């Protein structure tokens, strides 16, 4: 800073620093609180009064979680839908975007109207359900990954991204006789890393976090996702005074429904925590691009 700090600067800086520290605390403490619950004896947690560190340290919750077939199966389903759903979504969305990004494409206007109308209007959940049912997608793994293949928000972002890429790159490959799909896979996608990273992050976290489709479009117990199982525990504890009662009846056990649910929460947060900070500069750019486009 060039000029000397005035009294106003001191006051403003301290005020802002304090407020921001409070915001960080309010944001991060709940995660820490959940973490210490999972590392504590479930019955001991139920007594209450544990804020700072595990009181009766144990890994039982994690052992229980990964040994219970119901939770483990939910974890595997969630993992698979995230990988497959993200892959399909990124690939299909960039494919369509690549087509639409083509300079002087015929019927461009028509194509864009179709996209914009689809973005702004929807038939509502019920009509959507009827369609899914008629397509035979209800109660299949496909309902997780197929309807989310085309993301219109990212379609528009991808189009404007691909337009920035000089045409010569694709043209030289075309000379060598490469097909458009090949050009997309071998040339366009590899140099669109920021876009790929942003799309993967958002589609991936969307898949990972989704619970509504698992709750309403699927009945088979083998297809339930992690978030659905967590929701089930929440619903059970919503019975009047249910949480304290069910915990009391299990007071001998070191693992309670609540402590397992907390474990599931940590298991579902950790992958996100490991990924998003490293993609920050990409998604910040992507968000800005998206907001300019509306």
């Amino acid at each position, binding site marked *: 800073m060039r*000029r000397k700090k*005035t009294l*106003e600067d001191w006051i*403003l800086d301290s005020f802002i*620093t304090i*407020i*921001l520290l409070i*915001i*960080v605390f309010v*944001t*991060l403490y*709940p995660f820490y*609180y*959940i973490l210490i*619950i999972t590392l504590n004896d479930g019955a001991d947690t139920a*007594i*209450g009064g544990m804020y700072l560190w595990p009181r009766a340290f144990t890994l039982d919750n994690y052992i229980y979680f990964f040994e219970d077939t119901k939770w483990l199966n939910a974890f595997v389903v969630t993992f698979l839908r995230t990988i497959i759903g993200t892959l399909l979504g990124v690939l*299909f969305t960039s494919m*369509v975007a*690549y*087509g*639409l990004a083509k300079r002087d*494409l*015929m019927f461009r206007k028509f194509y864009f109207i179709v*996209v914009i109308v689809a973005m702004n*209007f929807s*038939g*509502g*959940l*019920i*009509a*959507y*359900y*009827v*369609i899914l*049912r008629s*397509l035979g997608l209800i109660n299949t793994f496909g309902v997780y990954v197929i309807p989310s*293949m085309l993301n219109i928000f990212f379609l528009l972002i991808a189009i404007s991204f691909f337009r920035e890429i000089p045409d010569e790159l694709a043209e030289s490959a075309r000379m060598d006789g490469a097909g*458009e*799909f090949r050009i997309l896979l071998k040339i366009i996608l590899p140099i669109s890393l920021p876009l790929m990273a942003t799309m993967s992050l958002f589609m991936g*976290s969307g898949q990972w*976090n*989704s*619970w*509504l489709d698992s709750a*309403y479009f699927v009945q088979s117990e083998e297809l339930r996702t992690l*978030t659905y199982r967590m929701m089930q525990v*929440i619903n059970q*504890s919503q019975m*009047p005074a249910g*949480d*304290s009662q069910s*915990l009391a009846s299990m007071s001998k056990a070191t693992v309670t429904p*609540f402590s397992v*649910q907390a474990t599931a929460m940590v298991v579902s*947060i950790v992958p996100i925590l490991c990924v*998003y900070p490293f993609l*920050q500069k990409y998604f910040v750019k992507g*968000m800005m691009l998206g*907001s300019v486009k509306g």
Partner: protein
Amino acid sequence: MGSGPKLKRFQTGNPVYEEKEQSGQLVKRFQKQLPFHILVGLGMLFLLIFSYSPMFGIIIAFKEYKISTGIEGIFTSSWVGFYHFKTLFNDYNFPTLVRNTLVISILKVIFTFPIPIIFAIMLNEVKHEFFKRFVQTASYLPHFISWVVVTGIAYAFFSTGYGIFNDLLLSLHIIDEPWDVLTNSDSFWGLAVMTAIWKEAGWWTIIFLAALAGIDPSLYEAAEMDGAGRIKKIVHVTLPGIKGASVVVLILSIGNMLGGGLVGSNFEQTMLLGNSLNNDTSQIIQTYAFKVGLAQGRFSFATAIDLMQSVISVTLIFTSNYIAKKVAGTGLF
């Protein structure tokens, strides 16, 4: 359309040749672009199936549709006109649903709109790069977490049995008996707004930080020359500098008001934080449609509710955009 080439034929001396070449060129151009049209066509087919056919399915709101009749049933079922809409308006739940939807939506717009702006301005004043980045990264985290997990965290915090919230308030003697935040109609609105802010306020600073970064630095230097302090600079340079972005975000959040404003979380919150004990303040139009539709199998009735909400939403989007254009000179379209 048809008269175009004919007229041309009159004007140019060489009509037949030109027309032939034109259409030939078009076909050639299309053939050359064929791979691109195939890629785009696949996308169009996808939208036709997953976006347009549900839109068409809206007609069941005016019919007596049975799910067992499948897709043909949409066309073959009998018309009942506005019967389902009348049922909705006479439904004893209806006034409560409308009230809850409006109150939650308006509260969210009022509270979730200014907080990211204030937060972004504060971040903008931080000169220490590492601290700034740390605060930003931390505040983005809740955005990537599922509402289910957020609800789980809320349960851990507010539970009357072992939650830290009641523990703390009781031991500080602020309250005398446990305050049941989760299963209480009086606290649902506050709970919904607070959790929405906690989850998304940090995220929406991205937009405003981008707008702040776009302010011309010479404006700050000029203000400094005039002897303006930091607070004066915030008021006279920073705030006017993000006016445009604020208007756009405000339109977006009013347009999506019934969905939950910026954070768009009304549906998920009611589904997850709502329960039989806070039903009379948590139930909203959208969740009601969902429940009567999928749980009770009244598909036509539920679609009628969906349709009504969509009409209100679309009206809100266009009205807020129109007003913004008149007042601030900027709109979305």
